[in-house]
C-alpha cells in the first residue's frame, strides 16, 4: 500500500472514531447523572424482627422420640422447597435428626446418661459468629449478614466449588448433585427453588424474620426451641443460657456457633 493512501485511511479512521466518541461519552455521562436520581430502596417491613446476632436454644430434654423432630423438619422442608432425594449421596438437609455422639463427637464417652443416649438431637447450620465457610467462599456467595449475623447463601452467585462444604465443621451444607425440582412434593412459590450445582443450607428463616415471623422450626416446636437476640440481655435465649448449662457443637474450634443445646 502506498503511504499516502495509508495516511488517508488513518485519517478517516481517526475522524470516525472522534465522531462516535462524543455520543458514547455523552451516553456515559447521562448514565452517571441518572444514578444520582432516586435509587431503588428496599423498605424494611415494620413488623420485621431484628437482632444483633440471632441465636437458638434447643432444649434437648423436651425431645423424646423421632415424632418430636419430624414436624420441625417437615415444616422447614415444605417452606424452603427442600427436595426429598432417595439417593443418600445426593441428600439435601437443612435441619435433621442425629445422635448425641454424631452431633457432639469428641464429647461422647463410652458411658452416657440414658436420656442423652436415646434423645434425638437436631442439628442445622450454627450461623457461627466466626464462620469458616464465609472465609472459604471465593465469590462471597455465602456471607454473614452484618445486620443480624445470619449466614446466608446467594444461590445465583454460587459457582458450586464446594469449598464451603469442606470448611464447615458441622456438615451443615448440602450440594445439589442433580436438579432438585422434580423431587419437591409441593413447591412453595414464596421461596426460591434451587438449580443443580449450587450449595444450600439453613438460613434461620431470614425470609420469615423479615415479615415478623419466627423460624418455622421454632414456631412448630411448641417451646422446644427458643429463638432470639444473643446480644440482648433481656432476650429469651439469654435468659435460658443464663439459667441453664448449655453446650455448643465443637466449641473448641472457635467458630462461635449460635445454636445452644440444653442437655
Amino acid at each position: 500500500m502506498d503511504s499516502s493512501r495509508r495516511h488517508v485511511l488513518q485519517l478517516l479512521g481517526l475522524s470516525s472514531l472522534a465522531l462516535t466518541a462524543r455520543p458514547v461519552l455523552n451516553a456515559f455521562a447521562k448514565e452517571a447523572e441518572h444514578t444520582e436520581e432516586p435509587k431503588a430502596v428496599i423498605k424494611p417491613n415494620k413488623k420485621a424482627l431484628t437482632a444483633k446476632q440471632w441465636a437458638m436454644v434447643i432444649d434437648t430434654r423436651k425431645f423424646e422420640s423421632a415424632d418430636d423432630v419430624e414436624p420441625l423438619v417437615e415444616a422447614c422442608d415444605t417452606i424452603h422447597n427442600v427436595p426429598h432425594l432417595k439417593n443418600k449421596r445426593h441428600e439435601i438437609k437443612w435441619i435433621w435428626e442425629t445422635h448425641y455422639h454424631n452431633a457432639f463427637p469428641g464429647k461422647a464417652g463410652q458411658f452416657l446418661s440414658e436420656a442423652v443416649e436415646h434423645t434425638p438431637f437436631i442439628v442445622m447450620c450454627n450461623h457461627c459468629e466466626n464462620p469458616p465457610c464465609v472465609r472459604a467462599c471465593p465469590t462471597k456467595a455465602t456471607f454473614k449478614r452484618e445486620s443480624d449475623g445470619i449466614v446466608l447463601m446467594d444461590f445465583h452467585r454460587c459457582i458450586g466449588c464446594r469449598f464451603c462444604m469442606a470448611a464447615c465443621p458441622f456438615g451443615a451444607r448440602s450440594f445439589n448433585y442433580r436438579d432438585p425440582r422434580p423431587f419437591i412434593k409441593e413447591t412453595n412459590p414464596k421461596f426460591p427453588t434451587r438449580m443443580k450445582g449450587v450449595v444450600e443450607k439453613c438460613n434461620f428463616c431470614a425470609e420469615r424474620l423479615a415479615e415478623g415471623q419466627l423460624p418455622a422450626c421454632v414456631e412448630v416446636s411448641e417451646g422446644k426451641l427458643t429463638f432470639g437476640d444473643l446480644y440482648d440481655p433481656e432476650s429469651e435465649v439469654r435468659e435460658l443460657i443464663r439459667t441453664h448449662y448449655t453446650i455448643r457443637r465443637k466449641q473448641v474450634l472457635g467458630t462461635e456457633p449460635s445454636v445452644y443445646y440444653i442437655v
Partner: protein
Amino acid sequence: MLELAIKGGKKYYGWMTFLMVIVGVGFLFYLKQLDFGLGITGLSRDTSWGFYIANFTFLVGVAAGGVMVVLPYYLHDYKAFGRVTILGEFLAIASVIMCVTFILVDLGQPMRIFNVFIYPSLRSVLFWDTIVLNGYLFLNIIIGWNVLEAEHNNIHYQAWLKPLIYLSIPWAVSIHTVTAYLYCGLPGRGFWMTAILAPRFLSSAFAAGPALLILCCLIIRRVSSFDPGREQIQSLAKIVAYAICVNVFFFLCEVFVVFYSNIPEHMDHIKYLFIGLHGHGAYVPWMWTSMAFMLIGIILTVNPITRKNEGVLAVACVLIFLGTWIDKGLGMIAGGFTPSPLHEVNEYIPSLPEIVIALGVWAMGFLVLTALFKIAVGVKEELRD
C-alpha cells in the same frame, strides 16, 4: 516454531490420535455431567471433593516439580540442565492446564467461573490459588517460549526474561503451598490440619515431577535424535531420591504426632486409610501399595548401582510416580473427608463416568505436553544438524 508440532511421523500422529480419542470420550461424559449435574460422580454430601480435586492437587505438584530443573540451571549455573530446562517448563505448562481443567470440571456451575474475578474474596484461599496457578502458567509460557525461540535463532534470550525466570522459582513453591493451604486451614478437618501439609506436598511434588521428567527424557531419547543426556538424567534421579526420602520422612512425622498424641480426630482418618474404620476400608490396599512403591522407589534411587542403571531407574520412577499419585491423588482428599464431621463413615468411591472424565483431562494434558515436547525436541534436533 509452532509448525514443528504438526510435522511428525506416523507414530507421532498415531499417539496424538489415541489421546484425542480419550479426550473425546471424556468430553462426551462431561457433557452428560453438565446435563445431569455432579450426581454422576461418586461424590456425596459427606465427601464433597473427590477424584477431580485429588488429581488437581497431584498435578499442581507435578507443575511445581518443573522448577527442579529450572532452579539448578538459572540459580546455581548448573550447565548440564540447560539442555532440559525447557522440558521442565513445558511440563509445568501442561500440568497447570490439567489443573485448571480439573477445577473447571469439578464446578457445579462452571459457566459462573468468572464470579471469582467479578466478586473476588481476598479471604478465600481458592481465590489466591486461582491467581498463583494462572500466574505460573503465564510465567512458564512466556519464559519457555522465548528461551526456546532464542535458542532456535541461535541468540541469547532477552535480558528482560531474567527477572521473570527468577520470579518463577519462588512462584513454583507458592502454587503448591497455596494449594496445601486450601486444606490445612480448615477447622474440623483433622487429617489436613497440620503445618507440615505444604512441605509434604512440596516434597512429593519434587519427587513426582522430576520422576515424570526422567521418564519423558528416556522416551525422547528413544523416539528422537535428541539425547537429554545421561548426566542430566542422573542428576534428576538424585533430586527424586532426596525428595521421595523427605516425603516419606514427613509422612512418618505425621504418623508419630497423630498416634503418639492419640487424638481421635486426627487418628481416625489415617486409621480409615490404612486399616479401615467401622468396617470400611476400600483404600487400605491402595495406601499400602503406595507405601510399598515409595519405599522400593527409595531403595532403587538412593542406591547408586540401581540408580545408574537406566532401566531400573525407569522402573523406580514409575513406582514413585504411582506411589505419590495414590498417596495424594487418591488418599489425601477422600481420607480427609472420612470420617465426616459428624463422625460417620460414608465411603467415597469414584464412579466410572468420573474416572473417564478424569482420564480425558489427563489425555488432554498429555496432548499438550506431547505437542510442546515435539516443538522443543524439534528445535534441539535442528541445532544438532
